[in-house]
């Protein structure tokens, strides 16, 4: 607890110092959605995050995408694996807290059999985070992905559409899950 306090204070200061470096002309949720479209994603499972709400609305309204809200992220990994076997292009939309719920299925289902999956992850617990409970998984998200050998990237809104489309290509060609992480600055850069 004591170790986290300086981090939260620094994050708080950062919030009021502005968000330099992002293209403010692109709506971030729409950029991710256009990336899903460009990738040809046609099957989505999701567990919500407040930062995903606009994206979830876009996905839900898209008649070309089957969208299943799941009860738990690991269940979403299983459902997406089945959808891939059925010839679909699946994506899992979730918060990074859910990554911990997925580890075994990502490893002993997707990585074991070589099943691709596009993970769109709201990356909480970093700069600007106001909920202390998000901080531990915020700090562990990248190390967990790297320990599993899962490719990940963190694009800006201006890069997001292309990055999401490329991430799916990498998942499919590499027969593996791939993660695209979107932190608080990303969602606030409207």
């Amino acid at each position, binding site marked *: 607890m004591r170790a986290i306090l300086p981090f939260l204070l620094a994050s708080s200061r950062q919030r009021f110092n502005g968000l330099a470096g992002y293209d403010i002309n692109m709506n971030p949720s729409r950029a991710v959605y256009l990336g899903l479209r460009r990738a040809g994603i046609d*099957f989505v499972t999701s567990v919500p995050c407040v930062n995903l709400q606009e994206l979830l609305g876009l996905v839900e309204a898209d008649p070309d995408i089957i969208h299943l809200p*799941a009860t738990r992220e690991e*269940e979403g990994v*299983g459902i997406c694996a*089945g959808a891939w*076997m059925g010839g679909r292009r699946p994506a899992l939309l979730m918060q990074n807290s859910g990554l911990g719920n997925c580890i075994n299925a990502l490893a*002993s289902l997707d990585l074991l059999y070589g099943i691709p999956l596009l993970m769109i992850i709201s990356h909480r617990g970093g700069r600007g985070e106001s909920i202390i409970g998000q901080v531990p998984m915020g700090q562990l998200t990248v190390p967990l992905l790297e320990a599993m050998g899962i490719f990940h990237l963190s694009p800006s809104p201006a890069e997001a559409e292309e990055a999401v489309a490329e991430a799916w290509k990498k998942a499919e060609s590499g027969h593996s899950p791939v993660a695209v992480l979107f932190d608080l600055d990303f969602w606030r850069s409207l």
Partner: protein
Amino acid sequence: MKRIEAIAMAGLAAADQDALLICNIGYPSRELFSVSDRPENFYMLGSMGMASSIGLGLALARPEKRVMVLDGDGSLLMNLGSLASIAHYAPDNYLLVILDNCCYGSTGSQPSCTRLGTDLAAMARAAGVRRVRRAEGREELAEALLEQGVVVARVEAGNAHVPIISLSPKEILERFMRCVLSAPQS
């Protein structure tokens, strides 16, 4: 009824109905592989608890294909939210068969909560699954295997003496997907 008998019946029923069959990790997959191997079987080698979810995704992705899932009491108890999702999306080409031997059979038959009275059929109903059946013997199971929804079949504890699966994960997936994708997609 021994579990391997129920698995053999399910394997035959799946072949007869030209169904895709997802099978749970551990001895159940080994038993199915030994008594009724076909490329339309997907054998899980890991990810305990995911059988019903894999089948649900497959059934929704390919509504023209019948999908059957062999799951166990222990593994379903790991992923109970799946019952709510099955109820909510309710694909009519989907049947989840829970072989309830009241224990974790592949790890030394430690008792599961169904030994103490947890009723998986009642839980499926409470989750909102409309078609739930119990199968107590061979005849009831044979009828139930023609159904959709959820079937809970009581089987004896204990594993058959069967070898491990001789296929690699890649081989299991590739031959399975060849079967799935050979049919025209709707």
